């Protein structure tokens, strides 16, 4: 077009980013890449093509990692671990700083390569992905520097196997590699097969930065390579970002292996617009929510919930905005919508949308490229929660919409999902915003903004969106373990009956469910004998229905999570007061069950009292944080209760065991279903009389007795349980981890080693962290 013509039409015209440097880098590697193992590239093996989804052009050939490749990489990482983990924090910080600097120096090359390999608009890779990746390394250079002084008593895990997705290839690498290295681990990273190139460029950077050989290893390949890495016995921790389906499989595959695991999975995040919002800004926010990276974002605000009285106007204005989006070659600097990552993903999006018959489907009336892997921005209005597309993740540029009438209904609709990754809400009313944000089932909440990320702020989900946080101190802790590994547990010792020497009136301990004593559903009990065989009483044998009843009672007590820390402290003190009044009786019971000395039994009661005091103290002191994020606003890290926790008590301390579990759980606002130890269950059942007299609301603490081996599965698989802890002597860690895969609940299992319940180190933050979820609430402000 001539200048006078453009002067009339005022079109944008092409504004292509130069890709020659990226092509030159690929050519330098002769278009074929091996793995990066032990500080060097291996020769390329059996390979597959990685394509530019916008053009279909083959960019390079990537090696399909074999079991032998994975073995070599894990070996290299294991070999590098001792030296790397023993470096001072400062020395590791220097390495991370060097990586950050080099990422910055090569930022445009990374951005162009990312866009070519993934299809995302160059604006996003240039202005968002790559700067956030740099920021992650800078931030974690700082965490490496501070780790030793700020987190004493911790040590790195070992070799971390990390499997990342294709939607933010370099950024997800940064989220995985930076905290692992900062903590002192070494890594083997498997990038997604569609998008391996920036990880391989990162390997180049690691060499350039002089990172010790073997600290970072990159093995390319498809899901089979990832599975080999996850299954490798030399891996101490698995970190995965990807689909909920694969996350569940990884949970099952690693169950009982002792490997640490964090999962960041799918989402169907709500985007709530109240009628007093700045509507135009809320609509612009949707562009950043669902049309960011073609909607291929795990935390995409993909489920629009608009207040009914503004819905019609909102949808009309939204459609007008959609008509202004520009789709095209993602290397064009003027493009909002690039290519979907692969034809497979495109087919999946198309199928889900075309199979839907509910509501009204609107495709943005914009010019779409005639070739390449492009899907138009789409809005489906008038859906109901029962419609499939309101529940299932599409992972494409497709927004679904429904309406609500009241804030309460908005929250109910928002939480009516298997997922719990992120949520967005728009309102100009600070009361409404701060009231609604904590009630949303999500790990991240954005107020009057969306898709804000920073290395200082934790990111991660609840429910089937996974567990663990990335970013901030909480993210670093996912790459550390206590320096004290505890001692191997001993099997539960159930004493055999001696001569019948029962005296007094028959006492049968019952279950404690919903604040009431309950008989076992199955109608079976067993005798409990003292160490000399004396019959001490009977306890019920719980079955799966008793688990069901206890969980139901615990769920009904949800109001406990909304009480104040002060009130919860008062009740814990009151428990201690009433337990203290019966200290002698509890000591005698311990002694009778275990045969320990009077002094030892008395000591256990005393420590239990102290422990109750400790968690009463913590109840109003386990503070959240206001994170230093680079915006004008606050990112609040709020410690919220996990919900309903199922816990198997240890055998080593009949009273102190259950107290050590229930006190932190209750202090943080959780409800708990305790399964007493098997050898001396009467101390736990005696406890319910104390709870009964201490104003503990019904359902907050529930106590069952029975076989840990039999109850592990029903508790771990229960969909309405939010976390399961096990300090059991029974071999149930694997059963619990495998059982948790169905709903991807958090688990905390002992793998056959328990801490010293009588010691001081068992008390405090490890339990408090297990009893809380960090929810990050972003509140930008300004008038």
């Amino acid at each position, binding site marked *: *077009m*001539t*200048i*006078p*013509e*453009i*002067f*009339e*039409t*005022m*079109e*944008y*015209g*092409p*504004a292509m980013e130069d890709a020659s440097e990226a092509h030159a880098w690929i050519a330098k590697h002769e278009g074929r890449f091996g793995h990066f193992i032990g500080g060097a590239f291996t020769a390329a093996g059996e390979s597959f093509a990685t394509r530019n989804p916008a053009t279909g052009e083959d960019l390079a050939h990537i090696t399909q990692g074999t079991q032998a490749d994975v073995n070599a990489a894990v070996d290299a990482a294991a070999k590098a671990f001792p030296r790397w983990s023993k470096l001072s924090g400062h020395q590791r910080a220097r390495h991370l700083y060097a990586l950050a600097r080099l990422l910055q120096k090569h930022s445009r090359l990374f951005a162009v390569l990312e866009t070519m390999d993934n299809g995302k608009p160059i*604006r996003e890779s*240039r*202005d968002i992905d790559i700067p956030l990746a740099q920021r992650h390394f800078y931030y974690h250079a700082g965490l490496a520097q501070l780790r030793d002084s700020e987190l004493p008593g911790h040590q790195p895990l070992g070799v971390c196997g990390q499997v990342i997705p294709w939607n933010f290839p370099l950024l997800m690498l940064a989220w995985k590699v930076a905290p692992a290295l900062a903590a002192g681990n070494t890594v083997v990273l498997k990038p997604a097969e569609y998008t391996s190139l920036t990880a391989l460029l990162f390997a180049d950077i690691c060499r350039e930065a002089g990172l010790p050989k073997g600290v970072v290893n990159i093995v390319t390949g498809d899901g089979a390579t990832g599975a080999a890495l996850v299954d490798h016995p030399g891996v101490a921790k698995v970190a995965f970002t990807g689909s909920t389906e694969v996350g569940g499989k990884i949970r099952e595959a690693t169950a009982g292996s002792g490997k640490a695991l964090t999962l960041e999975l799918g989402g169907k995040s709500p985007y709530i617009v109240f009628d*007093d*919002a*700045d*509507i*135009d*800004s*809320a609509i*612009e*926010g949707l562009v950043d929510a669902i049309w960011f990276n073609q909607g291929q974002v795990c935390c995409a605000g993909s489920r629009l919930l608009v207040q009914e009285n503004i819905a019609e106007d909102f949808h009309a204005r939204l459609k007008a905005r959609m008509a*202004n989006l520009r789709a095209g070659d993602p290397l064009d*600097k*003027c493009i*909002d919508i690039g290519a979907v990552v692969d034809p497979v993903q495109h087919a999946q999006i198309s199928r889900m949308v075309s199979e839907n018959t509910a509501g009204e489907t609107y495709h943005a009336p*914009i*010019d779409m490229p005639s070739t390449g892997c492009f899907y138009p921005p789409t809005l489906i209005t008038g859906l109901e929660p029962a419609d499939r597309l309101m529940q299932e993740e599409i992972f494409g540029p497709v927004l679904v919409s429904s309406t609500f009438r009241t804030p309460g209904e908005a929250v109910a609709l928002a939480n009516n999902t298997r997922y719990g990754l992120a949520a967005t809400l*728009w309102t*100009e009313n600070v009361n409404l915003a701060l009231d609604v944000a904590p009630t949303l089932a999500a790990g991240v909440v954005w107020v*009057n*903004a969306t898709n804000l990320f920073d290395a200082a702020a934790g990111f991660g989900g609840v429910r089937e969106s996974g567990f663990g946080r990335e970013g901030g101190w909480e993210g670093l802790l996912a790459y550390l373990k206590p320096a004290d590994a505890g001692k191997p547990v001993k099997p539960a010792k159930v004493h055999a009956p001696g001569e019948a020497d029962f005296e007094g009136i028959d006492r049968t301990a019952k279950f404690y469910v919903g604040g009431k004593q309950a008989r076992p559903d199955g109608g079976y009990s067993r005798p409990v004998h003292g160490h000399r065989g004396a019959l001490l009483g009977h306890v019920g044998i719980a079955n799966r229905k008793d688990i069901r009843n206890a969980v139901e009672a615990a769920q009904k007590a949800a109001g406990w999570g909304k009480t104040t820390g002060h009130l919860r402290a008062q009740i814990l003190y009151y428990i201690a007061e009433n337990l203290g009044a019966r200290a002698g009786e509890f000591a005698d019971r311990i002694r009778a069950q275990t045969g320990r000395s009077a002094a030892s039994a008395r000591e256990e009661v005393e420590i239990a009292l102290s422990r109750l005091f400790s968690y009463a103290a913590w109840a109003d002191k386990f503070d959240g944080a206001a994170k230093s994020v680079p*915006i*004008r*606003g606050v990112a609040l890290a709020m410690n919220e209760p996990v919900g309903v926790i199922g816990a198997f008590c240890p055998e080593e301390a009949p009273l102190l065991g259950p107290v050590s579990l229930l006190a932190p759980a209750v202090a943080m606002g959780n409800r708990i279903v305790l399964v007493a130890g098997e050898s001396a269950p009467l101390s736990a059942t005696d406890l319910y009389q104390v709870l009964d007299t201490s104003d503990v609301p019904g359902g907050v603490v529930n106590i069952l007795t029975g076989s840990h081996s039999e109850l592990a599965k029903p508790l771990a698989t229960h969909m309405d349980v939010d976390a399961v802890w096990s300090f059991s002597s029974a071999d149930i860690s694997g059963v619990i981890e495998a059982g948790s895969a169905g709903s991807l609940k958090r688990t905390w299992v002992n793998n056959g080693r328990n801490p010293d319940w009588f010691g001081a180190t068992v008390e405090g933050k490890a339990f408090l962290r297990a009893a809380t979820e960090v929810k990050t609430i972003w509140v*930008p*402000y*300004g*008038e």
Partner: protein
Amino acid sequence: MTQTTLETTTVAAGLPQVSHPRNPGMALDMDWVMGAQANTSAIERRCATLPGRRTVKKEYQAAWLARAISCIDLTTLAGDDTPGRVKRLCAKAMQPVRADLLEALGLPDLTTGAVCVYHEMVPYAVEALAGSGIPVAAVSTGFPAGLSPYPLRVKEIEESVKAGAEEIDIVISRRHVLTGNWQALYEEMKDFRAACGEAHVKAILATGELGTLRNVARASLVCMMAGADFIKTSTGKESVNATLPVSLVMIRAIRAYQQVTGTRVGYKPAGGISKAKDSLVYLSLMKEELGDRWLRPDLFRFGASSLLGDIERQLEHHVSGAYSASWRHAMA
């Protein structure tokens, strides 16, 4: 992609037209005014990311810069303005870019959108621009503070119109906004509009003195309801003048007003826009938020004095391939 019809532009490319149907105004709708919201941080994010989302290169950039020139209200508002100074400005408005460059661009008839002066300078500007088709705009109503006696402010408009000004840039009483006296603002704007007669009226909100973006949104709506043909950010004399966030708020108000009434109101950012690149961002903001129809001088103006100089140098760079120098271009 463009579906807008340019019903008012009928003459040769480059000639600015002030022929858009005027805004008849409407009754003051307080529910609408008070319902207006402006979330500052979200608005700032939109503005911060826009330059990264849209860009124009090569011949597109040259054409867009020429378009920016066609939308400039070339302005002098100094205490030492003289007829000679104004005459020089008018000559520049008629020949904004060196003739050989305009020839190379294929836009030989390019002029600025208008010339903007104080009342006393109107006759000289009208005389200098005679036959060019370039309108003269007069700042009025006790510009810049708007605190002279009310009847005199109304009278000042009438005098400027009588002197030949086809556009009147009025200043609103900021105190009406700051005290929430929307009715008073509405009445004032109506009076000013009436005093303008056939001349088009631009309402200067002095956004730098309104305190909040929400106030900017509300003042924009009230002035449009009272019949403003244009809304304009600033006098150029406030400590903060045109900014992208303020512009976004005002043009979203324009969009809302058009959606409800069907009437298009123009927009004029003024003060502080001095770089060619800034003018491109403003044009893309207009295109994105309001559409192509608002990229014409009858609905969009820059209030600027030094912007033209920077654009001239960029255009010479486009034509010659070498970076330019200011002394190679005629001064205003």
